């Protein structure tokens, strides 16, 4: 018995309209559209003449035809103009890098500083909220030169905070200069003449300026933290041990003193171990004082007094278990963390990566309490406290029923903890993922959050900072179609001032309406995502694109997505679906992947289409699946598993054969990685191993026109998979367009994107909007 599935609307190559074959030639775009429209006019004339006696119809048809050909041509020009939204200019504004996200409010609430970009310079702007005027602009750093490229890498900030006395401290991200020459490569005779090694490989300045613009100074840079290594042979000068500094924040109770940490290092010449250290840096004088030194190797995490409290020694052994240690207050002794509590499993192995475990986050203002995240005994990660002296829970419990408050990432991540440095207290937790969510422990901030949420419906309001007396709040507002704006709310005056926009060149009116949505999923679950409606649909009901969340584990979609705006420009309704198993939505949703990620995605897709169709006019026969990487695999597989559900597929570098995610490459002598092992334990089951669910290896046909974007020059399993799929589809006469791109596409360069999207538009015109192809239900021949 053979299974043959055919859609009524799937024409063979010979049945395809003439315009389709012309399209595959190199016809100019406008000319092509005119011709396609003219073909449509023939259909209209036939429709007008239906029911007439054959003779009369034959008589009238030539009369109507020129008229309708002209009308159709005019319509096509109009359509071309609409399509011109995908112009280089549109691409440029959509894909222009957003302005920096860093912002901070002074303790007295008078000043706000935020990162910005001006030309090729990273800048910081200082706004005086009490005396409106032009913001003061501080040039921080030039964009970084990329070797052998005309483009520059944008400089950005790693730190921006106000210190005591309205002094602003800021630092750009660390920039590693190329290593041109080391001292050992210099001839001894030259070294003997006192030749110094090349400049330090790190550029990591820490700078400060007064709010008034006075006293600008570079407080410290890498060279101040360099440690000299052992002398070379023949008394040659020693090499410097280069280390990038890490800003820990202000020291507890000292809002004019930064804590700066240096990692362990090894002298490149002698191999001598250089211990890690912590320094206090005065933000006025620039004075440095070392307050801590530790020779233990591994990634260290410090408390607010500069003491190393957590040590991550990395994974080791066949179990690939990660080793975590802690130290008690004012103690230099490291102890294993997994022995500290019976009900909080701090071990991390591939076996529990997707399951139950605990993750240390850091130490707050209570030096004896370890703040950690855990999903042991529950579905989602909550935040808790553990008293390291008594080894008992410290009474802190923050949980959310549907959201993991931290990601699956294994590393210690204190950035989600929100402290009020003025009151020296933990005041809230910023949950992982989108839309942004802060759970406030402080009742006053919780109340403010509630009020802002009411005032900004359909937006996510993040209270970034506030002044000491909490009369002014610095807000980041995102969501909807807007990339994000920064506001200051003045409670006493009851007014809200918009300070800056993340993308001021993108006006609200130029973007398509986007809303965060939740809806019922399979098996009583709740699915989430973002629904974007085109401002000007080309047809109603509109086609629907379902974009799967990328990655394994899948990362939830961002609130704003440029690509979706392009798709909506094409007149498409787009649902960015956070399919089950997406990071941050709990353990139970991940468990469904054990029964097959493709089957789960299919069930989610059906639920999503049903739900969208219940609230919007969409054409259920014109549904596109789309995804990148593993999500590209899901997009292909969903179409493969239910051909009648999907009309065509768009995949960006799809994992055509996802088995490589659970095993080492066969042709290389490579070892199983942590993630491969973790994925294997989650996805591989005896009855349905992943290698039998590949798009090609499964043996199932794929009837759908497919558009694939990939870097063809890469020699890896992805490109091999794409080649195999293309070969098979070509043999089956199923349209498949493979668009080779370069890295600039993935760097979101406007021209590269625009070129691909114009190709995609033509593909969709042909395969989604094709009017002469009758859409019908699938027929299954047993």
């Amino acid at each position, binding site marked *: 018995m053979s299974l043959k599935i055919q859609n009524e609307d799937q024409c063979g190559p010979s049945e395809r309209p003439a315009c389709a074959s012309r399209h595959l030639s190199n016809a100019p775009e406008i000319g092509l559209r005119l011709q396609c429209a003219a073909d449509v006019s023939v259909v209209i004339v036939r429709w007008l003449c239906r029911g007439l006696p054959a003779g009369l119809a034959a008589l009238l048809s030539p009369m109507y035809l020129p008229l309708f050909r002209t009308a159709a041509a005019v319509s096509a020009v109009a359509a071309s103009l609409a399509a011109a939204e995908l112009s280089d200019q549109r691409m440029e504004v959509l894909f222009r890098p957003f302005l920096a996200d860093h912002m901070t409010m002074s303790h007295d609430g008078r000043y706000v500083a935020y990162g910005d970009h001006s030309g090729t310079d990273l800048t910081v702007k200082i706004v005086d909220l009490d005396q409106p005027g*032009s913001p003061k602009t501080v040039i921080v750093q030039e964009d970084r030169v990329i070797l052998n490229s005309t483009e520059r890498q944008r400089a950005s900030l790693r730190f921006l905070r106000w210190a005591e006395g309205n002094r602003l401290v800021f630092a750009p991200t660390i920039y590693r200069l190329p290593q041109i020459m080391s001292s050992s490569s210099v001839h001894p005779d030259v070294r003997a003449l006192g030749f110094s090694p090349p400049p330090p490989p790190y550029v990591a300045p820490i700078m400060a300026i007064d709010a008034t613009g006075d006293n600008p100074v570079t407080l410290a840079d890498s060279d101040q933290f360099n440690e000299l290594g052992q002398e070379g042979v023949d008394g040659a000068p020693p090499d410097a041990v280069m280390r990038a500094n890490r800003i820990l924040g202000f020291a507890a109770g000292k809002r004019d003193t930064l804590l700066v940490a240096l990692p362990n290092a090894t002298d490149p010449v002698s191999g001598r171990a250089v211990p890690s250290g912590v320094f206090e840096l005065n933000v006025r004088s620039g004075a440095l004082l070392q307050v801590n030194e530790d020779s233990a190797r591994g990634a260290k995490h410090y408390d607010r007094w500069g003491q190393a409290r957590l040590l991550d020694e990395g994974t080791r052994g066949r179990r690939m278990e990660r080793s975590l240690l802690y130290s008690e207050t004012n103690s230099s002794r490291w102890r294993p963390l997994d022995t500290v509590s019976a009900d909080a499993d701090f071990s991390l192995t591939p076996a529990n990566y997707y399951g139950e475990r605990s993750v240390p986050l850091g130490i707050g203002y209570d030096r004896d309490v370890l703040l950690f995240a855990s999903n042991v005994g529950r579905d989602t990660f909550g935040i808790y406290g553990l008293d390291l002296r008594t080894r008992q829970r410290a009474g802190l419990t923050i949980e959310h029923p549907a959201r993991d408050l931290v990601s699956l990432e294994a590393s210690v991540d204190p950035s989600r903890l929100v402290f009020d440095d003025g009151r020296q207290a933990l005041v809230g937790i910023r949950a992982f993922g989108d839309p942004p969510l802060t759970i406030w422990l402080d009742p006053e901030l919780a109340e403010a959050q509630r009020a802002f949420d009411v005032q900004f419906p*359909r937006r996510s309001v993040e209270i970034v900072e506030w002044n000491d007396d909490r009369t002014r709040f610095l807000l980041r*507002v995102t969501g909807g179609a807007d990339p994000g704006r920064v506001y200051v709310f003045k409670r006493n005056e009851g007014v809200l*001032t918009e300070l*800056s926009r993340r993308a001021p060149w993108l*006006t609200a*009116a130029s973007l398509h*309406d986007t809303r965060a949505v939740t809806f019922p999923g399979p098996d009583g679950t709740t699915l989430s995502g973002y629904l974007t409606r085109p401002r000007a649909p080309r047809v109603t009901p509109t086609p629907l694109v379902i974009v799967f969340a990328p990655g394994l584990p899948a990362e939830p979609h961002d609130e704003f997505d440029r690509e979706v705006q392009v798709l909506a420009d094409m007149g498409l309704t787009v649902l960015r679906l956070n399919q089950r198993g997406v990071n941050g939505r709990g353990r139970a949703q991940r468990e469904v992947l054990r029964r097959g990620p493709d089957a789960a995605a299919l069930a989610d897709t059906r639920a999503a289409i049903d739900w969208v169709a219940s609230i919007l006019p969409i054409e259920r026969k014109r549904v596109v699946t789309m995804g990148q990487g593993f999500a590209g695999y899901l997009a292909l597989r969903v179409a493969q598993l239910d051909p009648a559900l999907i009309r065509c597929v768009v995949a960006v570098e799809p994992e055509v054969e996802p088995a490589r995610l659970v095993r080492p490459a066969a042709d290389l002598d490579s070892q199983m990685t942590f993630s491969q092992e973790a994925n294997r334990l989650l996805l591989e089951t005896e009855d349905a191993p992943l290698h039998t669910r590949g798009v090609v290896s499964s043996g199932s046909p794929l009837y759908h026109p497919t558009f694939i974007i990939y870097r063809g020059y890469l020699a890896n399993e992805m490109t091999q998979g794409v080649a195999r799929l293309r070969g098979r589809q070509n043999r089956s006469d199923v349209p498949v367009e493979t668009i080779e791109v370069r890295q600039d596409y993935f760097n979101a360069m406007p021209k590269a994107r625009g070129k691909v999207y114009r190709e995609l538009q033509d593909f969709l015109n042909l395969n989604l909007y094709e009017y002469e192809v009758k859409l019908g239900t699938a027929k299954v021949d047993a």
Partner: protein
Amino acid sequence: MTRFITRLVTGLIGVWLAVAAPAQPGPDDNAPLVELPPLLVEGERRLPPWLYAEADGTEYLSRCTSSTTRGYIERRVAQMHGIRSLIPPAFLLQTDVPAVTVLYSQSLRAQTQDEMVKELMDLRRRRGGSLLRNSRVGSVPNLMLEDRDFFAVFAYIDERNFRPEGMTVAVDYLDFLLERRTPALPAWLRAGLAGLYAQTRIDRRATIDPLLWVSTAESNAISANPDWPRTLVFAQDFFSPEVWRDEPIGSVRGRTLRAQSLLFVRWALDPQHGAREAFWRFAAAAGERPVTEEMMDEYFGFGFSDWRERLSDYLPEAVRAALELDLSSPPRRRVRVREATPAEVARLQGEWERLSIGFVRRRYPEFADRYIEQARATLTKAWVGGDRSPPLAATLGLCEIDAGNDAAARPYLEQAVAGTVVRPRVYTELARLRLAETESRRTDSAGLWTPAEIAAVVEPLHQAFMQRPPLPDAYRLLAQTWARSEQVPADRDWQRLEEGLGLFPDDVRLAYEVAQVHHRHGRNAEAVAVLGRAFPRVRDDATRRRYAELYALLNPPATP
């Protein structure tokens, strides 16, 4: 022969037509301004005849030349057409009662101060107030007086420098049309429309000047730098009547509210947004129910946050460039100006003088009798001369009412009503007199009224309801009447009462009286609903107590 008694100019009440260009300095520019309406009395001087014209719902009585009169009227008609192209008439006062405009040439003014003006000056001096104001005003000097269903304008025309094309309808007048619209427009809409109009020039097209945002400095800053920080209020605050009522105008939020109202209206009218039709539908709905996120979504397709962002994005453009809007072509109809009949002169002049009574009585009661005497004389002269037209009877009746002489008013009002005059106040006043008469005739005030007594009051009210503008007094009288009846109100009466609540949602007294009618006729649930809707608008403790007492009657405590 006409003697010109009082010469005065005032800009305090309402200015109809302002001269767009700076006023030409004239010989009388330093003449004093006195806050009294002009009083026209037959005198010794021989003056040109009165002219009469009718156009666009206004009757004109003019003592200017024919060409000046025509120029004035045609310009006004064109300007009003432009305004109605910009603002749908449904958002302006709509009345079936023709307005009256008296045009008077400045060249006919008396050369010496009238004795009454001297008296007034003495009075003001005794009161210690400032008497004189500099008269260098950039407007055609004029005064508007209003009644509950009617208004009239007196304008002095400097015919030597008169240029019709330089005249525009003043903002005060537009604000009057917006303010008197029923149901009342939301404060944000009224402020936005009036404010925007203040920045608009109407000719063949409407040209809206670059927006003045909060202050000149702020506007200049945003114009120069589109990323300049800007303060906008939340949508919930912007659409809240309470915020508009309570926020001081001079506060940051108060100024922002007003600037934002202009920005919103401008954004809506700007063709590039394609939102004009949706805006007017939204504005109409906003006058009837509270604005919500869902409502905004329903009309514009986006919510409060998007709204705010769109306005913010539009702001730099609004402060930088003028906005040109196409207007529909004005009607090309030549106005017919003819010599006025004595009856027309008496009625229109008398109407103006009647309107002056209330104004003078409020400000300078010392002069009220003189105005009453003058109005009565003007109108009676026509009546005695044989004019029995319903409009004249109506004006005479209202004149006596305004003079406090109800008994004398009654026959005139009855005659006007019998002639089906278009004057809702006449019907309402007659109903009031009949109600008072029935009340006084009944010794047993607790007794309920008979159907005949009810009908005598209600019937003229129903005639009033057929005419515009609607008057809250008429609805109150209807409620008061049915509250005295055993007979259950007919459907049309219930509908009218409900209509009154919709037209005057802020009239808490009307709501209270309608609730009483419901209560009287056993419709306690409806009474509770009416009180509940109106209670948030009650501002004084006495009314709150009355509401509470009635509410207690409607919800008696459960007996154990």
